[in-house]
């Protein structure tokens, strides 16, 4: 089928295409305008701008910890509307089915779940497979697991460590690797309560820095397109900016991605010993080209924090609102669920302002990524409002006025004039994520690209514009019309598939049998277990 998207304002930074024009789709792909071709379907995009489908690189949309959070908080996501006719189970307050529909309505077509526990990969993929419309991907968590820590302790060869990382990525169907407070979850099991970059995991004698460096090198050498995704130590602590700065310095010329930098951009100034270090970290990012970051923006209101940083979540139990938490010591990381309400008080306003400072003070939209660390800083449904804050200084001033004056006085936010352009938004939410994840087939509108396209009707109200796309195409299917789901389909989970090393598989079999008394088969699964047609899409490693 040939579709013509007619007369929209194209914003395609990758191909340098800007301004009014047509876009053609044949079946699943964007194509050159056909010579004298008649479209089977024409979409009138006049008065709209046309971008590639948005890509979210860090959003906790499925897996054991996310599901435990749902279980913990039934009162916070009661459904209240009858089901829309076309979309089953999409009106539940917080379901996989709702997740896909809500993302699609905002013009997002690919979303990465960044924290998959390797042992629970099947559970994660079953949830992702029940998220309709969009494509998904996962990052596998390593760095607190006994197998890796033992290899580092025993000075195993670089090759052996790479074989283990490759096996983990392949068998769990991941798109990359994440390390979360490297070594801290293992140390917490030994009753350690705080853990910094140069602290050492008891009994292994391995530092957090050594774990990060080992995984960073393995990911780089394996040609995994997405650099090691790092959740640093000391999340949320005043003074954590020092930790983040030390981690950035530790990248040493090799690509590294730092997750939700907002949660580390805290200094110790002022009478509350809690201040913004955003300007300092932004400057460091600006001068460290191999490092990328996402923000983890805070927006005000009720949410729940879901993290595999079990040590941090344990220490945050006292701040739970409502007062209930789950703390899980897992095989590797485990995790913690702590519900939380961001108030417009000193701390909440400070966090909110710090996130925006980072967005606005980091110059290069190719290296700063648009996230709220859903749902940790805010649910992803806050994205439209966040776009508005980035694109409008007036909107920021208005919101600042409702916040804590004390916090605003310690922040540079009100002095920053920058407003994101649509081109910068297109880079940050489309082109750059595709590049960062190694997804060459999306993030742009050139011929040959997957026809993942979002079309927004221009308007003064930026949040409204981004909240309900006029049209969204996924793989060439028109899935959203006037902000409502018009076609139901199933996306795939994008994965790498490095071949397993036979000796490593033997080693892992022996390890699982001896240490866990279980066959390795308990931790692997065939594609058929996911029970959908073509649940996975393969992405190539760099050669």
């Amino acid at each position, binding site marked *: 089928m040939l579709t013509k998207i007619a007369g929209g304002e194209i914003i395609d930074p990758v191909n340098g295409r800007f301004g009014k024009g047509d876009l053609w789709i044949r079946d699943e792909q964007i194509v050159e305008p056909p010579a004298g071709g008649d479209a089977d379907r024409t979409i009138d995009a006049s008065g709209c701008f046309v971008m590639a489908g948005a890509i979210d690189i860090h959003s906790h949309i499925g897996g*054991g910890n996310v*599901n*435990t959070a*749902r*279980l*913990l*908080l*039934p009162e916070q*996501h009661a*459904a*209240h*509307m*009858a*089901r*829309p*006719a*076309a*979309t*089953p*189970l999409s*009106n*539940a307050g*917080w*379901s*996989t*089915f709702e997740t896909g529909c809500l993302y699609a309505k905002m013009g997002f077509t690919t979303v990465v779940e960044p924290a998959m526990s390797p*042992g*629970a990969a*099947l*559970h994660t993929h*079953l*949830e992702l497979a*029940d998220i*309709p419309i969009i494509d998904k991907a996962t990052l596998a968590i390593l760095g607190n697991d006994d197998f890796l820590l033992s290899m580092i302790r025993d000075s195993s060869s670089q090759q052996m460590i790479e074989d283990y990382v490759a096996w983990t990525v392949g068998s769990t169907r991941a798109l990359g690797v994440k390390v979360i407070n490297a070594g801290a979850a293992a140390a917490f*099991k*030994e*009753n350690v309560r705080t853990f910094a970059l140069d602290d050492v995991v008891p*009994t292994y004698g391995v530092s957090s820095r050594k774990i990060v460096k080992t995984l960073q090198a393995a990911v780089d050498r394996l040609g995994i397109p997405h650099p090691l995704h790092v959740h640093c130590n000391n999340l949320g602590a005043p003074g954590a900016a020092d930790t983040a700065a030390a981690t950035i310095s530790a990248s040493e010329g090799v690509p590294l991605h730092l997750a939700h930098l907002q949660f580390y951009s805290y200094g110790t100034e002022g009478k509350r010993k809690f201040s913004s270090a955003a300007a300092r970290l932004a400057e460091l990012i600006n001068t460290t080209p191999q490092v990328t970051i996402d923000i983890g923006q805070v927006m005000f209101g009720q949410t729940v924090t879901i993290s595999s940083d079990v040590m941090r979540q*344990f220490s945050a139990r006292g701040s739970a609102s409502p007062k*209930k*938490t*789950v*703390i*899980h*010591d*897992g*095989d590797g990381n*485990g995790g913690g669920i702590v519900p939380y309400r961001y108030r417009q008080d000193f701390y909440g306003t400070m966090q909110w302002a710090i996130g925006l400072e980072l967005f606005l003070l980091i110059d290069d939209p190719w290296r700063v990524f648009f996230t709220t660390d859903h749902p940790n800083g805010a649910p992803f449904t806050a994205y439209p409002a966040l776009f508005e804050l980035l694109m409008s200084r007036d909107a920021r001033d208005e919101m600042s006025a409702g916040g804590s004056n004390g916090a605003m006085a310690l922040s540079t936010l009100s002095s920053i004039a920058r407003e994101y352009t649509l081109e910068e938004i297109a880079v940050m939410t489309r082109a750059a994520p595709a590049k960062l994840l190694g997804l060459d087939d999306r993030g742009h509108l050139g011929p040959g690209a997957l026809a993942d396209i979002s079309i927004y009707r221009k308007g003064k109200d930026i949040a409204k514009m981004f909240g309900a796309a006029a049209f969204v195409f996924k793989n060439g299917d028109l899935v959203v019309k006037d902000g409502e789901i018009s076609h139901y389909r199933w996306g795939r989970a994008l994965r790498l598939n490095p071949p397993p090393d036979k000796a490593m598989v033997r080693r892992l079999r022996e390890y699982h049998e001896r*240490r*866990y*008394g*279980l066959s390795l088969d*308990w*931790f*692997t*699964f*065939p594609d*058929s*277990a996911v*029970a959908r047609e073509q649940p996975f899409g393969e992405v190539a490693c760099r050669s």
Partner: protein
Amino acid sequence: MAVAWIGNRETLVEHACEQAAMLLQSSRCPVISFDTDIHGTRAAIALAERVGAAYDHVEGAGLSRETALFTDKGAMIVAPGEVRRRADVVAIVGELPAVHHSFVAELADTVPDLSATNAREFFLIGDEGTKVSTFLGSRKATPLSSDGGLSGTLAALRAQRAGRRVSKQVSNFDDFARALGTAKFPVFLFSGHGADGLALEMLQGLIADINRKSRASALHLPASESGWGSVLASTWMTGFAPRTGFARGFPEYDPWRFDVERALASGEADLHLWISAGSAPPAEDNGVKLIALAKTAEPVAGAEITIAIGEVGVDHEAVVYSGRTGTLAAIKAQGASELPSAAAVIRLVADKIPAEAALPC
């Protein structure tokens, strides 16, 4: 071999599914109870949405106590693999379901390789009547008990640890205190099968107390493994655990109202869809109509419609929750047969019910 019946009369599966769909559509208050794998659960919930039914697991009572622990208080929990490798003290809290006894026996047979002590000590928390567990083999478990049953004993343990007075001392408390004093990672094994809500809450209080200064956690050994799998799938699909209903067109979680056994006994429900290859449905009275999906070679007594299904992991491959790994696992068919899975039959039924929305699974 016959696989479908209307009343006592053999029929084609296709026809039985049509009849089942008609009964479900004409029902005023249909309820579903199931004991099946993840994909059977997913199909049953999709059907429940389509016909406005409420659903529950066949062992809903124990599971609902476990669910309530999470919805009301939260918990500290640990993965089974870590228990095997790290737990130097294991305390069994009340009675555990038989399916988990082999893991406890395995704990008795092994020592924690990630613990400096390389030894494991066992305690058994419960009232005086709790039998010393036979599944520990030659290993001895020190019994801990006081007044007031399991929750009373747990409350007394907490109080004595905090140096508070108790009406009756917990037996062998000093042994327990000594063990906790040196333990690096004590783990309490619990289940909603043998512990009520108050006991589960007391246990978590005790664990929170210990974690102020040292480490401890609890291993959740669910009242039913298939049931906990269904809790997980239901939670991601609807946001809620079973005992959820679609009477108003959207999922509502109400552990009292949608307790299917209660809804049947009270006469609220007029149609019962029973889905289990492992057990027979209870005899219905109150004029409730029964549709039975069961592993059977003959019609189920009293059922309007019977359709034979295969057993998870025997007749067909499946995805199940494993208490041994603490997560979902893919299992192969041990004796693959022609019998359809519950998921396949439920989907056939749901397909016969007209709806604007496609089936989500």
